[in-house]
């Protein structure tokens, strides 16, 4: 396909979804939600099949229902705008263009759960968005007042810590602490910010919630596959003909994805950012992008044959070594060992068998780390080390 043909196909495919970046009348949407009432909002979100778009994929409707069931003096809705996964930049664009819909999604969650306080946790790297977001929120507060909705949104900034994207680390950070993930249970829906029930939703998830109320659960459900319903905003980068942000259906094969975006020489795709899986060329056909296959929070990074997978893995491991919160042993020390380990193999200080040792260590990290960060370091490590053994060893 020529690049032009790719664009045409891409337009068609995007045309089937078109939710996130569509303009909607948020006042009308909220009026509709108010008339639906708490229970119906939750039912709609549940029946849409929407799962969290940040990466972990927890069913959003269930999260809201759990929070709604809690009896508490205060409840919180937190919009997780700490988009730090390497290769992901879709939330930034959503916040640039559709902040009002993000706020609307938060208000829907508030209606559904009984929360009155909303917080947008914005990563420090996106501080230049603060002014425009503040304006949008002011505007939105006027709307809420008109609708007589007792809800309030504030923005809080991060300060440069990838791990704060983990919801309990984010909460710790909001409470003024080091962003160290908590032990779970209890989950935030039971005991979150300041010990009160708290829903933490990704930016994109909240906008989909708004669109589900706008267009109905069926409009969302008919997109995607049985296990991965709806659309998804992808951040495409790397050795790609076409880079950027695209809203597509979930459930497509990686092969067709590479056809659309690749430069014709794609040897691997990192699906889901540094915490995701690296899929080699030979597995493109069998790989489904979605919860039943290889899930992604949106990051799709393509590598062509000019790339050294050793250096890519090395870059990921440097990232984790620095961004691990450091509290638990497997992640803090494991990341250092994996990084130093591949360096030692490369330099010939350790023999090839040592890679087996490192693979075993990565598997241990995936089951023994305290939070998703440490558990997911194994994903890139195992998938790259196994599929590109030669590049790591020689």
């Amino acid at each position, binding site marked *: 396909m020529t690049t032009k043909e790719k664009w045409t196909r891409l337009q068609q495919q995007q045309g089937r979804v078109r939710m996130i970046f569509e303009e909607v009348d948020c006042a009308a949407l909220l009026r509709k939600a108010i008339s639906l009432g708490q229970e119906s909002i939750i039912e709609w979100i549940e029946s849409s099949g929407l799962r969290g778009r940040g990466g972990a994929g927890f069913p959003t409707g269930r999260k809201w229902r759990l929070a709604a069931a809690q009896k508490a003096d205060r409840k919180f809705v937190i919009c997780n705008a700490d988009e730090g996964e390497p290769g992901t930049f879709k939330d930034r664009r959503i916040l640039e263009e559709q902040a009002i819909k993000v706020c609307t999604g938060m208000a829907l969650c508030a209606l559904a759960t009984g929360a009155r306080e909303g917080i947008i946790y914005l990563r420090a790297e996106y501080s230049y968005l603060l002014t425009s977001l503040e304006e949008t929120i002011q505007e939105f507060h006027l709307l809420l007042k008109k609708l007589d909705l007792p809800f309030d949104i504030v923005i809080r900034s991060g300060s440069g810590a990838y791990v704060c994207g983990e919801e309990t680390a984010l909460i710790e950070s909001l409470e003024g602490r080091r962003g160290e993930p908590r032990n779970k249970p209890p989950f935030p829906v039971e005991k979150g910010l300041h010990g009160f029930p708290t829903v933490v939703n990704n930016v994109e998830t909240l906008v989909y919630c708004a669109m589900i109320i706008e267009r109905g659960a069926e409009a969302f459900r008919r997109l995607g596959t049985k296990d991965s319903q709806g659309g998804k905003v992808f951040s495409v980068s790397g050795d790609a003909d076409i880079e950027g942000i695209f809203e597509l259906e979930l459930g497509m094969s990686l092969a067709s994805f590479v056809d659309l975006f690749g430069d014709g020489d794609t040897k691997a795709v990192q699906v889901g950012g540094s915490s995701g899986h690296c899929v080699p060329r030979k597995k493109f056909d069998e790989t489904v992008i979605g919860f039943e296959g290889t899930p992604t929070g949106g990051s799709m990074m393509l590598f062509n044959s000019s790339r050294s997978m050793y250096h890519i893995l090395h870059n990921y491991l440097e990232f984790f070594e620095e961004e691990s919160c450091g*509290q638990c042993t497997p992640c803090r020390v494991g990341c250092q060992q994996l990084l130093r380990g591949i360096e030692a193999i490369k330099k010939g200080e350790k023999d090839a068998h040592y890679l087996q040792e490192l693979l075993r260590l990565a598997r241990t990290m995936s089951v023994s780390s305290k939070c998703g960060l440490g558990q997911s370091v194994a994903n890139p490590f195992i998938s790259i080390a196994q599929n590109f053994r030669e590049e790591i060893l020689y």
Partner: protein
Amino acid sequence: MIRIIMNGSPMEVEEGTRVLAAAQDAGVRIPTLCYHKDLCVAGNCRVCLVEVEGQRALQAACALPVSEGMTIRTNSAAVRAARKHVIELLLSEHRVDCLKCARNGNCELQNLAEEYRVEEREFIDLGLERSLDRSSPSIEKDDSKCIRCQRCVRTCTELQRISALTVAHKGSKMRVDTFFGNPLGDVVCSNCGQCVSRCPTGALVERSSIDSVWSALDNPKLHVVVQTAPAVRVSIGEELGCEPGKRATGQMVTALRRLGFDKVFDTDFTADLTIIEEGHELLRRLKAKLLDHDENTVLPMFTSCSPGWVKFLEHQFPEHLENLSTCKSPQQMFGALAKTWYASQAQVDPENVVVVSIMPCTAKKFEADRPEMRSVGARPDVDHVLTTRELARMIRQSGFDFGKLEEQAYDTLLGTSTGAGVIFGATGGVMEAALRTAYEVVTGRPVPFRNLEILPVRGMEGIREAVIPIEGCLPEWSFLEGVDLRIAITHGLANAWELIEGIKAGRLSYHFIEVMACPGGCLGGGGQPIPTDMEIRLERMAAIYEEDRQMPLRKSHENPDVQRLYEEFLKEPLGEKSHELLHTHYTAR
């Protein structure tokens, strides 16, 4: 009740129970490192991993509450493999220097390495160089041995509310640190040593004085006397093969003689003396306040025996230094007397007298070093302070069988004591001893409690309070007639903080407060045998009260040598000599 299945056997446990405790009920010991019974759960080290059916990842048993139908395996292949990996990882970031380590043989990491047979260390040594902070006179910090379990940080925050130690940086750079990495000797540390007591490895240890003490003992020109704190006699045995709660006073005295000390004395003697001085100070303050309405007199009066507490107050609440009794601690009263009264009685040159004290405490090392604690010449009154652990090490080095030692008595003069002196070692003990004396001074009658045991001030509650009605006063104390003496006892500096905040806010009001920096008082001190936990503290406490019951004299003012000291030397409580030798002042820090 919640039904769970533990290693194939069904069992019922109470709701809210953690898997670690449930396993213990089932007779299964799950290894731990970051877990400590005194502290909040962290779930960081990941040594206590268990497998829970239906969960992809292994779970930390210390943090996971049981839920209905939970099926737990504590010893599956996955669990063993993960635990071994975690231990290997910890060893790779720990400077393994066991033979030279103060904690060799009593190191939790070493024990686990042995248990899991970590023989060939595959992982890369993360190359930590020794980074010793020896700026504090009490505590040594070596980051290269730290395994980041954060027990010290939680101790410093949760139990002591000081947070001199914190966790700084993240990722591979994450470390236990002070404010801006300042030397431990220059920060708000109280020197209580509770962090040392909870460190699973040798990253935090006391500054050792063993070598200095040996060289003093080896020097024939020197007259080396030793004093033993009340709480040491009920804990030293734990280091030497006895069960917690063993009263080893007599054996300890024998051991000290065999080590070569010229005289073996007892801090209990100066504990009795403290009661006389402090009791009179309290009565003088009460008189000034209640009778003379003196505005410069401050109540409540705080005890000043605990050097960790004193430094804490100097840092955190300097506006309350006037509340502190001006009495030196028993250790320092002893030092001052040993180099004055005792030296003249024994006809030795004070210059040749070396005073060693055996303390359950690391803060005592700092206290002995304070510039104001020098009564004779430039040398400190107390030359060397050894913790209980250090004394035990010296006894082990000497090679004699502690369990088979005969029981000997202390030398007289500075070795005579009463039950009131020994209970200083338990939280509430100073208060009880003070009441036994002060009540009798004021009324001429013993305190109205059976066997002199003032039960309301005893126990482990963080803050305890009592009201002692004073009736039937002797004529000179008639201004106290009908007064309800309000007292409080607290231990652990977080509790002390609560108490002071309560007083500042006007919620609480007392005449006299006993504060001990360490949980349980000196029996739980930072220089005591490791481990120390609540069960062990209670054993030591029982032993202390038993020791008191066995004493022929149980009131400080009945101590014949204290009486002699006043007759021959001090003349009267709070007199001129007392002021010179037994009282001190404090510094806002």
